[in-house]
């Protein structure tokens, strides 16, 4: 009976969960991908991260900032110190103070210098207002995007690949759905009208490592890169986890043996 109650509760929970995903608005199931960083043994694929970085650099970074990632972090993608210096130096950084920290004269707006490896990624716009002005809405910072949405990397992938030419029947007839000519219809975006036009196409960038430049490949690569940007500690975390678990399981097994031994003569 006890099991029956629990089973009934579980069944009820599950059946209701699927019917009412995302507060009544219909969205198709996320396009679940197999990621190299999935699971207990999952790790980032450095080559994939570099391809993703290339896409961010050539495409996304014209609108989206990545303000929590520093150029020095690119070492995790296999760039050498000199390469990182070069990458950083291509960007210009505007500071409200002089190189010695002193305040600027009124007529100087900024002190401008090339970025250094210790700098965070230089954003495409001076501030949010400038970003809104240049686009129809604020392009969100992407540093944490891969863990700031339900579904994580699968959501970001689905969003990027979720711009069909035609609005599906079940959404077109949904009450509350208003088509918007100025926006892009997206299957997964709340309210369906995204301010971001479709970006993912075949041959979006030319990969240096010769990987076939398909749309799917591009989307997977940029999402892997964004997941790294959000969780740069993942490789270290998962490999430490294996060692800690191995230790804990051995320790716990020994504690159990000791417990059996100590309790051997006590009926309980």
């Amino acid at each position: 009976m006890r099991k029956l109650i629990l089973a009934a509760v579980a069944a009820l929970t599950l059946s209701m969960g699927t019917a009412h995903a995302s507060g009544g608005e219909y969205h198709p199931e996320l396009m679940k991908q197999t990621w190299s960083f999935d699971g207990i043994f999952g790790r980032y694929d450095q080559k994939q991260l570099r391809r993703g970085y290339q896409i961010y650099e050539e495409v996304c970074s014209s609108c989206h900032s990545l303000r929590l990632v520093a150029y020095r972090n690119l070492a995790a993608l296999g760039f050498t110190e000199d390469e990182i210096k070069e990458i950083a130096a291509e960007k210009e950084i505007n500071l409200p103070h002089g190189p010695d920290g002193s305040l600027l004269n009124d007529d100087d707006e900024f002190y401008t210098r090339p970025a250094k490896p210790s700098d965070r990624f230089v954003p495409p716009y001076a501030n949010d207002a400038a970003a809104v002005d240049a686009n129809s809405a604020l392009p969100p910072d992407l540093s944490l995007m891969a863990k700031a949405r339900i579904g994580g990397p699968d959501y970001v992938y689905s969003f990027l690949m979720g711009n069909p030419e035609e609005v599906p029947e079940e959404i077109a007839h949904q009450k509350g759905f208003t088509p918007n000519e100025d926006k892009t219809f997206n299957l997964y975006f709340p309210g369906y009208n995204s301010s971001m036009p479709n970006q993912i196409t075949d041959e979006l960038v030319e990969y240096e490592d010769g990987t076939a430049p398909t749309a799917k490949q591009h989307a997977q690569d940029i999402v892997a890169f964004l997941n790294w940007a959000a969780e740069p500690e993942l490789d270290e975390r998962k490999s430490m986890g294996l060692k800690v678990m191995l230790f804990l399981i051995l320790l716990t097994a020994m504690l159990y043996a000791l417990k059996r031994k100590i309790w051997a003569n006590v009926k309980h």
Partner: protein
Amino acid sequence: MSSPEWKNPVIKWVDSRLPVFSMMHHSTAGYPTPRNLNYLWNFGSLALTCLIVMVLTGFFLAMNYTPHVDLAFDSVERIMRDVNYGWLLRYLHMNGASMFFIVVYIHIFRGFYYGSYKGPREILWILGVVIMLLMMGTAFMGYVLPWGQMSLWGATVITNLFSAFPIVGDFIVTLLWGGFSVDNPTLNRFYAIHYLLPFVLFAVVGLHLWALHTSKSSNPLGIEAKLPEDSIPFHPYYTIKDLFGMGVFFIFFLYFVFWAPNFFGEPDNYIPANPMVTPAHIVPEWYFLPYYAILRAITFDIFIIPAKLGGVIAMFASILVWVALPWLDGSKVRSAKFRPIFKWFFWVLLADFIFLGYLGKMPAEQPYVIMSQLATAYYFAHFFVILPLLGKLEKTAQLPESISSAVLKKSEDA
């Protein structure tokens, strides 16, 4: 049990002036514990383990955290990215909160099942309720500190509840906020309180243990230990059993830390707090969901009490009713083992509580509202109607002579 004669002259000298060694002996080798405790009795020591993990990780996090609305979110991300093992500290702390509640919920429901709250353990039980309330306050304020969207909006919704109280409501809310909205002063005072409350927790845990060591542990049979052979010394029997339990617990805990660190969290909290954008669904952390469902279930005025105040009262009452539990449950028999009808109602209550948790996560619309109302009504009926009636009507099974006779009989049968 009397203190041992200390042979070491240094120990003897110290102990005659400050009897720490005698005290340690009293609470370990000299502390009699029922011989029949099952693994559900591990969760007390596990809860203390959680508290220690939280205090230690929190202490190091505090060294790197900045309680300012403009800097808090980024300081947490700096911990995650640049502080040595900062990600480990933070994920231990974040998941540690969930583990603490899992452990404490099991501890509480173990108390429900075995009637651990009954005399002479009423004060022990009430101190436990106080601990639970302190934990909830601490966890709520801690969740505000990363200053993500759910931090800000969760804090806004929960602090606003206090405005439901007549006359003093608005004053309390302003006091909580330190201003006229959830803003920098709120974050500052929540941080200060979040750092203070664990010390209060330690103090109340101390009282909880003091009360425990006075009345001694209850046990699955629910009868007091009378004969010498009913009890065994805490050390080494329960020290090793608790240590083994901790090993299993840490395997469970660290699985989440290393492989699913955001399993219990809300993705929205990785979006920096923005007072201009309200999230589509504001949901509290999972351990608050049953109370949140009860809060939202009261959608109607009760005489002169407006719905909002009614919800707040119901929410607080859902925990405070536990204080009265030793007197609401009139049955002379403690353990559900010997209470054939109560046993069923225990499982229904547990299912109801889990169901309330599920409803707390759902949007406030039909059919969830009516379900919440029914589940809430049942929850209170359990304490105010079912338990008092059972105390009078239930025909309980025959209790064993003593713990040792029951244990020995069981092992003969086996």
